C-alpha cells in the first residue's frame, strides 16, 4: 500500500521536492542549534519555553481533533463521514509526529531522550504526555492502515479493529488533557494554573483541527477528483462553530476571573498579551489579530447563510485556525513566563533558528500527510474504477 506514495504526477513530485528542500534547510538550522546549543533561540532563564513548545501544544490539539470525525463515524455510525474519516486519522498521524519533533528540538540533550522511558516517572506529567502521544500515534497508524487496507481489498475490516477504534476516542481526549496538565498543575505559573485549561485546550482543538480538515478537503477537491461531498463538510463546520463558541466563552471566563478578582499575578499576564506590560507590547498586535479573527470566524460560522456558502466557509475556517494558532502557538506559553516568578518582565521573541527549524518540522508533517493522503486517494480511486461496470 505504501508504494502508492511513490508514484505520482509531476505536480506531486514538485510539491514533494519543495517540502524536502524546506526540510533540508530546517535540518541545517537544527544541526547548528544541536552543535552550539539552545542559545541560538530567543529563550532565556526567564522565558525557558517558547515557540517550539507552543507549536507542540497547538499540534497536540490538531492531532486530538481526529476524534471529531472518528466519533460520529464509528460510534454513531454517521455514514456521511466515511470518506473524510481516514483523512482525519492521517492528519492526526502527521500532527503527532510534528509534536514529537518539536519536543525533541526543544531538548537540551536530545540524545538522552529515552531516559524518559529508562527512568519512567509516574509523577511527571511529561512522562504521561509522551506515553499518551506515542500510544495515540500507534493507535492511529493501526486503525488507519487496517481500515484502508480492508477497503482496498473490498472487504469489511476485521472485527477486532472496532474495539481499538472505540478505545482511541477517549485516548484522543486524553492526549490534550494531559498536555493541559503539563501547564495547569504548576503553582509557579499562575497564568496557566487554571482548571479550565484542559477544557479550553479541547475546545480549541476541536475548532482548529476540523477547520483545518475542511480547508484540506476543499483544497483536495480542487487539486484532485476526490470529493467528500457537501454534507460532511457542513457537519464538520457545525462542530467547528460550537467548539469555537466554547473556546471564546472559556477565554471570557478566564478574563472575568482574573480581572474581577483583581489578583495581580493573574491579571498581569493578560495585560502583557492584550495591552502590553511595562512597555513590552510585542505580543499585543498578534493577540488583537487573534481577537479579530475570532470575531470574523464567529460571525461567518454562526450565521447559517454564510456557513453554507463555501466561499465564506473558507474564510471562516481560516479565521478559526489563525485565531487559535496565534492564541496557542504564540501567546499562551510565553505569557506564562512573563512576568517571571520575581515579577520581572523579560521579553522573548523567536529567532531565525527557531522559525527555520519549525518550518522544517512543519514540512516533515506536511510531507507525511501528503504521502498518506496520496495513498488514501489512490486506494479510493482504484475502488471507484474497479466497481465500475465493464
Amino acid at each position, binding site marked *: 500500500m505504501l508504494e502508492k506514495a511513490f508514484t505520482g504526477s509531476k505536480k506531486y513530485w514538485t510539491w514533494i521536492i519543495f517540502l524536502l528542500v524546506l526540510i533540508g534547510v530546517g535540518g541545517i538550522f537544527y544541526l547548528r542549534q544541536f552543535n*552550539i*546549543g*539552545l*542559545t541560538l*533561540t*530567543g*529563550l*532565556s*532563564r*526567564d522565558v*525557558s*519555553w517558547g515557540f517550539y513548545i507552543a507549536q507542540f501544544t497547538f499540534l497536540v490539539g490538531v492531532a486530538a481533533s481526529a476524534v471529531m470525525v472518528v466519533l460520529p463515524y464509528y460510534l454513531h455510525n454517521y455514514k456521511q463521514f466515511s470518506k473524510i474519516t481516514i483523512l482525519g486519522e492521517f492528519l492526526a498521524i502527521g500532527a503527532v509526529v510534528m509534536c514529537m519533533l518539536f*519536543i525533541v528540538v*526543544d*531538548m*537540551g*540533550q*536530545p540524545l*538522552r*531522550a529515552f*531516559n*524518559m522511558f*529508562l*527512568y519512567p*516517572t509516574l*509523577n*511527571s*506529567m*511529561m*512522562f504521561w504526555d*509522551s506515553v499518551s502521544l506515542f500510544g495515540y500515534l500507534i493507535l492511529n497508524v493501526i486503525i488507519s492502515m487496517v481500515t484502508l487496507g480492508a477497503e482496498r481489498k473490498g472487504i469489511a475490516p476485521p472485527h477486532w479493529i472496532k474495539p481499538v477504534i472505540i478505545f482511541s476516542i477517549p485516548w484522543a481526549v486524553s492526549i490534550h488533557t494531559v498536555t493541559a496538565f*503539563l*501547564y495547569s498543575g*504548576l*503553582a*509557579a*505559573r499562575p497564568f496557566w494554573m487554571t482548571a479550565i485549561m484542559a477544557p479550553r485546550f479541547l475546545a480549541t482543538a476541536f475548532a482548529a483541527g476540523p477547520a483545518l480538515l475542511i480547508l484540506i478537503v476543499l483544497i483536495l477537491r480542487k487539486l484532485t477528483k476526490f470529493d467528500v461531498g457537501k454534507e460532511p463538510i457542513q457537519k464538520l463546520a457545525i462542530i467547528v462553530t460550537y467548539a469555537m463558541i466554547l473556546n471564546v466563552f472559556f477565554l471570557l471566563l478566564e478574563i472575568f476571573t482574573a480581572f474581577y478578582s483583581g489578583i*495581580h499575578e493573574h491579571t498581569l499576564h493578560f495585560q502583557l498579551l492584550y495591552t502590553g506590560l511595562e512597555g513590552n507590547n510585542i505580543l499585543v498586535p498578534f493577540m488583537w489579530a487573534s481577537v479579530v479573527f475570532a470575531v470574523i470566524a464567529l460571525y461567518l460560522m454562526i450565521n447559517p447563510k454564510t456557513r453554507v456558502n463555501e466561499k465564506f466557509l473558507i474564510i471562516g475556517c481560516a479565521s478559526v485556525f489563525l485565531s487559535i494558532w496565534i492564541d496557542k502557538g504564540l501567546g499562551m506559553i510565553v505569557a*506564562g*513566563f512573563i512576568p*517571571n*516568578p*520575581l*515579577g*520581572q518582565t523579560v521579553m522573548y521573541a523567536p529567532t531565525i533558528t527557531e522559525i527555520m527549524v519549525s518550518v522544517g518540522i512543519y514540512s516533515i508533517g506536511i510531507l507525511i500527510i501528503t504521502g498518506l493522503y496520496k495513498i488514501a486517494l489512490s486506494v479510493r480511486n482504484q475502488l471507484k474504477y474497479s466497481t465500475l461496470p465493464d
Partner: protein
Amino acid sequence: MNRRNFIKIVSFGGAVTVATKLSIDAFSGTNANQHSGKRWAMVIDTRKCIAQGGECRKCIEACNDSHNIPKFENPKDEIHWIWKDKFKNAFITSENHYLPQKLNEQKVLLLCNHCDNPPCTNVCPTKATWKRDDGIVMMDWHRCIGCRYCIAACPYGSRSFNWRDPRQNIGNLRDDYPARTKGVVEKCTFCDELIARGGMPACVSACEEGALRFGDLNNPDSDVRKILLDNFSIRRKPELGTSPEVYYIV
C-alpha cells in the same frame, strides 16, 4: 500439600524475602547518607548583609569559584546559583509600598530554597532532580535531558539552564568539581560535596559577617534553630505549600 503446609511455605518465603530486603538496605550503605535524620536549612540575616552595602559579593564569588559557574555577557545565557535581587522582587507576594528605605534600595540574596515539597522534582520526567532525606534538592547532570520542565515549575526562578557550552566561559576551571555540559539544568545544591565532609557551604564560609548560617533544623541545639527561635523570619512564597527551607531575617 495440605492447606496448612501451603500457608507455612508461603509465609516462610515471604519472611525470607522481607528479611533479605531489609538486610540489603541496612548494609548497602548507598542509602546511609539519606537516612541521616538531618534537615539542612539556611538562615540569611539580611540586616547584616545590607549593613555591608550593595557591593559585597563574597558569598556569590565563593560559590561561582567553587562550582565552575561560567560568566556570560548576554543576560539570556546567565547561570547563577546564588545571586542578588531587589527585596520587592524576591518577596513579590509581600507587596508593600512603604518598605523601610534600606530594604527598598538594597538587594537580598537568592538561591534554591531546597523546599520540603519541591515542585521541580515532582515534574522531572527522568528523576534527574530529586529530594534527599536530608532535604537537599539534588541534580544529576548526566541524566538530565534538558526539557526545562523543572525551570517552569520552580516558583523562585532558582534554576538555570546551560544554553551553550559553559567551559570556555569559566574563569578558573577547577578539577575537583564537575563542569557541566550544554543542555542541562543546574542550581545550588547546598554544597553537598562540602557538607558530606562535615564542612559548611562555600557561601556560608565566605561570609565573614555571619549573615549566612547553615545547619540542621532537626537538631534543636543547632545554630539555625537558635537563630530562628530568637528572630522573626520570613520565607519566599510559603503560601504555595512548597515549604522553602531558606529563612530570611529582615
